[in-house]
């Protein structure tokens, strides 16, 4: 019996169209737009000015606090301007436009692809290097990694979980990364273990990626303390709390952090970025992005420089299909539809999904028929139908009592609702309002 989390969960059609496609390197675009807020936390402060010449890997925005990161130039060239432009949040955000000239990297970056296994840094040094390299959670949440690695006082991590679940339909970037960079990910895992001073690490992979499970299990034998855990295919297993439950059987208490049960979760992409940052001195300025869709000519995985416009990626897979209804940054369950193809790839963009018009539109919603399907699929054990009503009627104190803040916004409820009700929309709204109320109360 394969492990999985206990309550809730759905299994949408996987549609992993780009599975098995080698990671190609996308040609460097002519200009890039690098937003200064690509992570959860305070936006970074730009440290370059208009007209400055930058090299690939040079810091262009410095972290502005503990929960913030550095941002590095993904190309070499001249800073065109620092201006507002829409990013995937749908609102114009500040960012740095760079006109590309050649591709000159910083001297200290090791560009060879040889595997470097040995390292002799101690924990705090690793954390510092991760912070300098601007590494954030690559699964999509973009929480600065160095913050996770320093547990709050009185808490100690016991196990590191590496998230190779990739439970979102369509996306294959993590899968392909595991196949091509298995050793690098394992070294990255060891670095993270050292940084947190833990002895054990487990890589959770869903059972629809048997080749990755096989490969990593074989390779993990030569790395101390790392094991691979095959998991049953179920969405949202890639959620932090679900993965902890599935692998360790521990349940993160309501409102608590994973560290409360001694676990820290990092994505395989993050582990790979950590490897590159420490063993190759390469800061985070490119990532693997899946570009896919049912009507797309050639769905594939690309290594993309941060700041590349979405339109470049669409061009690479053979152009925008005629009947496109929606372009989504991320997966179909948790991704966001983007408003313009100029929106750039950021550190958290795991995929670009192009949906045909027939699938993109929401169906008209009807009354709740009290079938309680949303309750049975909620992985957090909440009552989505109730939370939606409370959000609609703006009864926020009760929504708080009903633990609206525990919602992980996985969208299983909206996916499963036979009346097509926009459950998550209202829950997210309620969550935002309750969050604001809690913040003012703390002040």
């Amino acid at each position, binding site marked *: 019996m394969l492990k999985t989390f206990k309550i809730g969960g759905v299994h949408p059609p996987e549609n992993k169209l780009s599975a098995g496609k080698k990671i190609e390197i996308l040609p460097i675009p002519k200009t890039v737009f690098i937003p200064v807020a690509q992570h959860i936390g305070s936006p970074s402060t730009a440290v370059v000015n208009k007209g400055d010449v930058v090299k690939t890997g040079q810091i262009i925005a410095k972290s502005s606090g503990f929960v913030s990161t550095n941002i590095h130039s993904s190309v070499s060239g001249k800073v065109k301007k620092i201006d*507002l432009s*829409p990013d995937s*949040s*749908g*609102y*114009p955000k500040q960012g740095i436009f760079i006109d590309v000239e050649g591709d000159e990297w910083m001297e200290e970056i090791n560009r060879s692809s040889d595997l470097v296994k040995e390292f002799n840094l101690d924990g705090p040094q690793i954390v510092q290097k991760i912070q300098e390299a601007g590494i954030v959670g690559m699964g999509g949440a973009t929480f600065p990694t160095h913050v996770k690695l320093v547990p709050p006082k009185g808490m100690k991590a016991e196990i590191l979980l590496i998230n190779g679940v990739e439970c979102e339909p369509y996306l294959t970037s993590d899968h392909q990364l595991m196949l091509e960079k298995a050793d690098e990910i394992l070294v990255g895992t060891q670095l993270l273990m050292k940084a947190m001073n833990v002895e054990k690490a487990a890589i959770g992979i869903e059972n629809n990626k048997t080749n990755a499970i096989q490969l990593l299990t074989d390779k993990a034998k030569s790395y101390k303390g790392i094991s691979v855990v095959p998991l049953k295919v179920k969405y949202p297993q890639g959620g932090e709390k679900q993965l902890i439950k599935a692998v360790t059987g521990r349940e993160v208490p309501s409102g608590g952090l994973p560290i409360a049960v001694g676990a820290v979760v990092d994505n395989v992409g993050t582990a790979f970025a950590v490897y590159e940052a420490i063993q190759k001195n390469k800061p985070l300025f490119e990532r693997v992005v899946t570009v896919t869709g049912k009507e797309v000519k050639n769905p594939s995985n690309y290594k993309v420089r941060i700041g590349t416009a979405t339109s470049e990626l669409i061009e690479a897979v053979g152009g925008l299909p005629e009947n496109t209804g*929606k372009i989504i940054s991320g997966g179909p369950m948790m991704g*966001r*539809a983007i*408003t*313009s193809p100029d929106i750039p790839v950021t550190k958290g963009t795991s995929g670009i999904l192009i949906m045909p018009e027939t699938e*993109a*539109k*929401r169906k008209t919603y009807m009354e709740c028929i009290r079938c309680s399907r949303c309750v049975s699929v909620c992985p957090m054990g909440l009552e989505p139908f109730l939370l939606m009503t409370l959000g609609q009627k703006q009864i926020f104190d009760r929504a708080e009592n009903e633990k609206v803040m525990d919602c992980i916004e996985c969208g299983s409820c909206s996916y499963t609702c036979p009346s097509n009700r*926009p459950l998550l*929309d*209202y829950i*997210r*709204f309620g969550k*935002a309002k309750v969050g604001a109320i809690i913040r003012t109360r703390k002040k």
Partner: protein
Amino acid sequence: MSITVIYTIATLSVIGTSAAVILYFVAQKFKVYEDPRIDDTEKALPGANCGGCGFAGCRAFAEACVKADNLSELNCPVGGNETMSSVATILGLEAVKKEPRVAYIRCNGICDHRPKTSNFDGATTCAIAASVYSGETDCQWGCVSYGDCYYSCEFDAIDLRAGLGVPLILDDKCVACGACVEACPKDLIELRKQFPKNRKVVVACRNQDKGGVARKACNVACIGCGKCEKECKFDAIVITNNLAFIDSDKCKLCRKCVPVCPTNAIIEEGFPPRKIVTEEKEECSTTK
């Protein structure tokens, strides 16, 4: 008459009398004094319970009026000066005259002026649409037109004008309770001084982007050029963050700022000769 009936009547009378005596003394003991003026004041109020005064309904407002030493801080926007003067007579205080106010939606981005660049497909409330992204047009400041203000209005004073892009406030029905001001997630609605014949001169825009960006998104956006500010003799216009704002308390309705505006962002309403009417238009079409 049967003896049973007599017994019954006698027993019940004894119980009734003793209960009445007990109740009388208990009522005396636990008596709560309530100012009779509260009831009188409440009767004088419109009874809309809209919360426009800032209190939880008319009763709470009446209590606050009775407690207050003067009425300068208290105002019932629904009843206006008339109600407040009758409240003042009841309480023996002096009524403070307040200028009537009226709500105005500071956006003129109807579909002719502001082309759609995307389609929103989520739950149709302004609050959610605004939290998800900047809106169906390129203007991130303007009306998202799902009518949260319309649903918040208890007085039928808002015409949704579905499909046109921006609702319209009917000045004659508006009581300036401020419910729509709270409801608008884009902070578009302002309570302005009400002039006779519903005349108004107002910057119908909240776009704080730079001029070029604003103009690209909407034909009638304020670009913050400052011409109106220079033209105004009464210091009623200030420009902050690329956006002009006409202070209705200082405005004298001279209308000199209207023709100088290069984008027609300043709107005059209620004047006979140069009246601008926005007629019902067909539903917006999306351009990709």
